[in-house]
């Protein structure tokens, strides 16, 4: 059973300014296997947040279905919500309550009474324990992000949705957050994340989907995507001092490139290869 199945999801809403219908999602389909990290990538306004909002029932799809561990979010929303944790893109700004109160309430929303052990564990894990009596407005941006992650995990969800969790976060915190995400994956949590840091997506995700203007452009492994949509650069320094630079498909091996350009291997002094990156493949795909 898949952790998440998105089946031909379409979402149309009326643009309040222009007054015309806008297709935010145009029949998006993909699935996520349990226990993996899945990257949902796309430029701003591609439809990522709308899709996450549809999974969490903040938005209702115009058509199609979304299933979480086999249950439809449309027909069994209360059941699927128990299995999902979500970290929204925008930082929370609750003015009234402290960190520990917020986690206590969040536990209660999922029907968990006296969840202190889990809340303390999450606060310690996310370096929030010493700030547990502080109100949200007293926290730094990074602490607020960590609090959002803690909130999403109080009920030990099987599927975690991270909508740009590292937006505006410094390098150190980003690294610690990703480390924690890996730990969650190792605990068996399935993770869907959206991020603009493609280098991170390349390292973290076993599978990625590219979405642009509401359409799914690609769904597969980052490795295959790089192979299919990016090129590698080969820089040859010849014994006579000449330098040749070739940009070729990722799929071609060194010997293929040398043969293609009639380069005598015996005349080569040095070879440098710059492999294609997910970012290159993404740029090419989105520009198509």
């Amino acid at each position, binding site marked *: 059973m898949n952790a998440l199945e998105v089946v031909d999801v379409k979402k149309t809403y009326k643009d309040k300014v222009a007054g015309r219908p806008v297709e935010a999602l145009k029949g998006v389909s993909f699935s996520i296997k349990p226990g993996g990290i899945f990257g949902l990538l796309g430029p701003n306004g591609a439809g990522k947040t709308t899709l996450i909002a549809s999974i969490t029932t*903040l938005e209702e799809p115009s058509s199609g279905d979304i299933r979480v561990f086999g249950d439809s979010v449309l027909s069994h929303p209360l059941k699927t919500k128990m299995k999902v944790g979500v970290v*929204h893109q*925008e930082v929370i700004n609750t003015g009234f309550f402290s960190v520990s109160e917020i986690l206590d309430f969040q536990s*209660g*929303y*999922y*029907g*968990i009474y006296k969840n202190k052990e889990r809340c303390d564990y999450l606060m310690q894990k996310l370096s929030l324990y010493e700030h547990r009596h502080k109100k949200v407005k007293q926290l730094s941006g990074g602490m607020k992000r960590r609090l959002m992650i803690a909130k999403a995990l109080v009920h030990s969800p099987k599927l975690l949705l991270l909508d740009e969790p590292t937006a505006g976060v410094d390098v150190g915190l980003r690294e610690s957050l990703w480390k924690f995400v890996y730990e969650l994956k190792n605990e068996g949590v399935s993770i869907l994340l959206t991020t603009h840091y493609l280098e991170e997506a390349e390292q973290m995700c076993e599978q990625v989907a590219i979405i642009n203007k509401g359409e799914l452009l690609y769904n597969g492994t980052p490795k295959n995507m790089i192979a299919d949509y990016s090129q590698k650069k080969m820089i040859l320094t010849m014994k006579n001092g000449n330098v040749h630079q070739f940009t070729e498909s990722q799929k071609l091996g060194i010997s293929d490139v040398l043969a293609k350009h009639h380069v005598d291997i015996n005349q080569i002094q040095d070879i440098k290869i710059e492999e294609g990156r997910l970012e290159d493949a993404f740029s090419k795909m989105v520009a198509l």
Partner: protein
Amino acid sequence: MIIFFTLVRREIKRFLKVVIQTVISPVISSFLYLLVFGVSLGSSVQLKSGIPYLSFLIPGLMVMGLINNAFQNSSSSVVTSKFSGDLEDIRVAPIPHSYIVWAMGLGGIIRGSLVAMVTGLVGMAFHYMQLSEFLWIKHPALLLYFFITGGLMFAFLGIFVAVLANTFDQLSAFSSFILLPLTYLGGVFISIESLHPAWQFVSKLNPLFYLINGFRYSMLGESDIGIGSSILVTLTGVAVTFAMASFSLKKGSFSRW
């Protein structure tokens, strides 16, 4: 039930965190109304029913405290949640809409009742000092009924207005242009017996008139309208506003301001 009581607990904790703004401030307003209208001006007002004006005013001010605070409690809860993003958290959690509506309703009753009861106690103290007699509640069970229905009605209305409002301005416009006139014209300060028949007819179209008179009957045993009508209208009011609040949660936007 854990989910429901968590929501109720949150509602109560929220308004207690800002108790000066949510409880003390409205009580001071009511105190001033009692002092100025009830004690100072009240002695020169003669009601046809023969009830002292101060006695007449106390239930009206209690209703005003109840409904304003019930409305403000739920509407400010929704609005601050829209700002902070809490509403999204509640929406993505496995919480049935009916729990949200009833929890906010209960929160509204508690805050509204707190203000109304303190207003009532202060009023009774004034009553004893001014008239040298206690203001005994004639029908306590009925009073409880009107506390519950009045609080629920306006807490539900607060949810409806706040969920559908897109700006603070819209929320404030509802309070200023609809709630406030209905309150004042519903008979908080006046008895409709002193009005022209045409205005008496208009007053009877105002649901608040029935709530205020229900309160007045419960406390004094006298009112401008039969108690049966008050019970029926307030009960209908609760059902209608509950439907409105549920509709707003189902169809309204949960996105952040």
